[in-house]
């Protein structure tokens, strides 16, 4: 079914190639008639200028606390020309703006909005990666291999970084070394009264276990990592056992304790009332039967023969319907995902379609609503 690089090209493959190429050509042709330029990202620079501000507390003049005050560009220039760049901090932030804004600015003649090279290159890279992954559907190829290696490398690094800044720092460092964290890592944090909360010493346990875990990297110390592993599996086994019995066994059983007879809502006529009652009650009956039958299906002690076999069979029917329905309902979301990627290619990158009027400043339609 699939093909590796070695195989010769079958007629089917040639045909697919032809169609794909044709499609690409068509798109490119269409592209050349639509819009002005493609795949550019514009940004608006926003200067951020701060100066140190030393405030002395009213009670006691010796107590001084220094904070940073943001100044407007004008104020800042004035300050600098007066006291130079001593104790000032400045940087420039760039906010992304729709191309529409840039075109408008050009039409008006000049402005602060500029083309952002890093983001533009990024956008083209993203488009390349998107196509590279899709190319795998045709067959494995160098582009896919490249994309695959990039995603593995980047994502491994990404999760390590997130793990450090979002877990190690707040959950471990802030607890065991609050002062250090506040000074160098998370200035926003609240120091506990007395600078250290002794109850946090319990977090030495994961610290030690953590280092034992890393011990696996050293030769001869592999066994060290078994202790944290044992700890994790043990605690989690205990937690899950209680959790699942409470949340699944008890609550699901509770949900299933329902009357088999219910009055129908539709009371437009006696017939309709009886009918809807039957309809509603039937639902309840089917539900209870289903749960019991499926439970029988999962029964291990008895072979699926005779009465048990028949009941189990009913159980399988329920399971199959369940799976079918789940499949059907999931499809919709999956298609939407693909549509989103395609829209990214056609809209953000190729500037081929512009459904959200990101680039035209006035749409013909505006006449319709003001």
């Amino acid at each position, binding site marked *: *079914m*699939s093909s*590796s690089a070695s195989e010769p090209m079958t007629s089917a493959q040639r045909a697919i190639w032809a169609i794909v190429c044709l499609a690409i050509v068509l798109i490119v042709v269409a592209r050349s008639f639509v819009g002005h330029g493609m795949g550019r990202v514009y940004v608006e620079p926003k200067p951020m200028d701060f100066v140190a501000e030393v405030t002395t507390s009213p009670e006691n003049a010796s107590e001084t606390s220094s904070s940073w005050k943001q100044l407007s560009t004008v104020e800042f220039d004035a300050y600098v020309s007066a006291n130079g760049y001593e104790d000032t901090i400045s940087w420039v932030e760039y906010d992304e703006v729709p191309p529409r804004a840039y075109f408008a600015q050009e039409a008006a003649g000049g402005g602060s909005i500029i083309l952002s090279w890093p983001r533009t290159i990024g956008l083209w890279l993203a488009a390349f990666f998107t196509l590279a*992954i899709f190319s*795998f559907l045709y*067959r*494995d190829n160098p582009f*896919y*291999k490249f*994309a*695959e290696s990039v*995603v*593995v490398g*980047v*994502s*491994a690094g*990404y*999760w390590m970084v997130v793990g450090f800044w979002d877990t190690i720092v707040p959950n471990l460092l802030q607890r065991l070394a609050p002062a250090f964290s506040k000074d160098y890592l998370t200035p926003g944090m609240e120091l506990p009264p007395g600078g250290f909360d002794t109850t946090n010493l319990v977090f030495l346990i994961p610290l030690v276990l953590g280092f034992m*875990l890393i011990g*696996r990297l050293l030769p001869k110390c592999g066994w060290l*990592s*078994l202790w944290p*592993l044992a700890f*994790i*599996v043990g605690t*989690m*086994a205990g937690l*899950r056992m*209680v959790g699942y*019995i*409470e949340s699944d*066994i*008890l609550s699901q*059983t*509770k949900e*299933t*304790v*329902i*009357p*088999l*007879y*219910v009055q129908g809502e539709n009371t437009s006529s006696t017939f309709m009332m009886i009918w809807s009652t039957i309809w509603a009650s039937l639902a309840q009956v089917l539900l*209870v039967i289903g*749960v*019991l039958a499926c*439970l029988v299906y*999962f*029964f*291990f*002690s*008895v*072979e*699926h023969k005779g009465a048990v076999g028949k009941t189990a069979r009913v159980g399988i029917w329920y*399971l199959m319907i*369940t*799976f*079918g329905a*789940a*499949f059907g309902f*999931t499809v919709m979301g999956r298609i939407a995902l693909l549509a989103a990627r395609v829209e990214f290619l056609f809209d953000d990158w190729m500037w081929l379609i512009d459904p959200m009027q990101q680039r035209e400043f006035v749409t013909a339609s505006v006449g319709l609503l003001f």
Partner: protein
Amino acid sequence: MRTSTIQTTLLATALCASAGVQVVLGSSTTSWLAPPESPTNLVANDLPWDGGGTVQIDWTASATPEDQLKGYEILAHELSVTPREETIETDEQADQAAAEQTESVLEGEGIAPEDARRQAELSTGSFAPAPADPSEWTSLGIVPATQTDYQATGLDKAGVYVFKIRAIGLEGEFSAPTAASGEIRPVAAFFNGRKLPLLVTLMLIASAVFAFIVLARRGMPMRIRKIAGLAAVDEAVGRATEMGRSILYINGIQDMDDLQTVAGVTVLGHVAKTAAEYDAKIEVPTARSLVMTAARESVQSSYFSAGRPDAYNPDLIYYVTDEQFGFVAYVSGMMTREKPAACFYMGSFFAESLILAETGNSVGAIQIAGTANPSQLPFFVAACDYTLIGEEFFAASAYLSGQPDQLGSLKGQDVGKILVGIVIIIGVTLATLQAITGSDSLEAAVNYLVNVILGS
């Protein structure tokens, strides 16, 4: 009688509340209605058997009819401890209630040592008086007029509280508040009694499993039905050996905190053992480094017990990336290149399930999947040769090991299923009879079953 619960943890909310009250007061001055009658018989009790911080409040509805009330506002005040001499006597009712309260607390719950100390302090009643003006109290919220009870949660376990209730008219005008309730300390119980049913259930299931394990060890024969997917394991491994291709084993994409992953590692052990005996190559890429660690241990010991420790190669069990789709990208690429003859998917899977199964199918591998994520079962069922559905997956390790004590645990699970079935049948019967006859005693029975026994 419905019982609502309103979080009072946020001081902000409390402030909003009291300020909100002012606004209403302002508007109420325009009203021509007389203020409604105030509710009566306010009784506040620390909720027994709880983790502390919750107080149960009951009262008798105001004489003003419900349809002329917007609801009742619950006011609370946390008393601050002060030297005795400063305390001013509170009205007898409160003192009495406080006394009763102390009693009930000391009896009602097995008091932990620190609480005993608090109780002593409580009984001395050395508190600053509660302010007279209701607007200085914290409003815990407003409940509909149909309601005559309320659970104040999120209180400080160590704090001491008094409560008042007042009715609110349609125009937002307030009745006079009731007299303050007794001083309540929402202490924590030593044992959480409301979890008793849970404990019993846990004990029943655990002991059933345990009992059968013991019986099995005693040599009681354990007969259990076949599961197609598991019979196919040897076949798959054998096929891989014949074709001289590798076996791919994916242990889900969750970490060791998920028992599905642990079960997957166990199954891996058995598959690896078979592979070692057939001398087939088994490759295990993992999405978590902890899983890699566990998998290596498991496979290594399998090779040892198969008597081929030399054939064990740890580099075939490796970490790829934690990122779900990064992992999938790697595995599906790897599949198309190495064309494994057999693919096992045993563990916790999500959206990637179908990507893996379809790619595996396209390289013509025989595929066996097992997961307990209901949302993914349809895709495995559709795209794999065999699928272990939910509980079957957990049973797999027992089957494959064939050890009596392992099989015993399955019998234990069946006992659990029987229990559930019985409870459902009884409950449904009661509920149905109740629906038809409408008898109150039956209703009480059903409610007890649903809310007390099952509703922990």
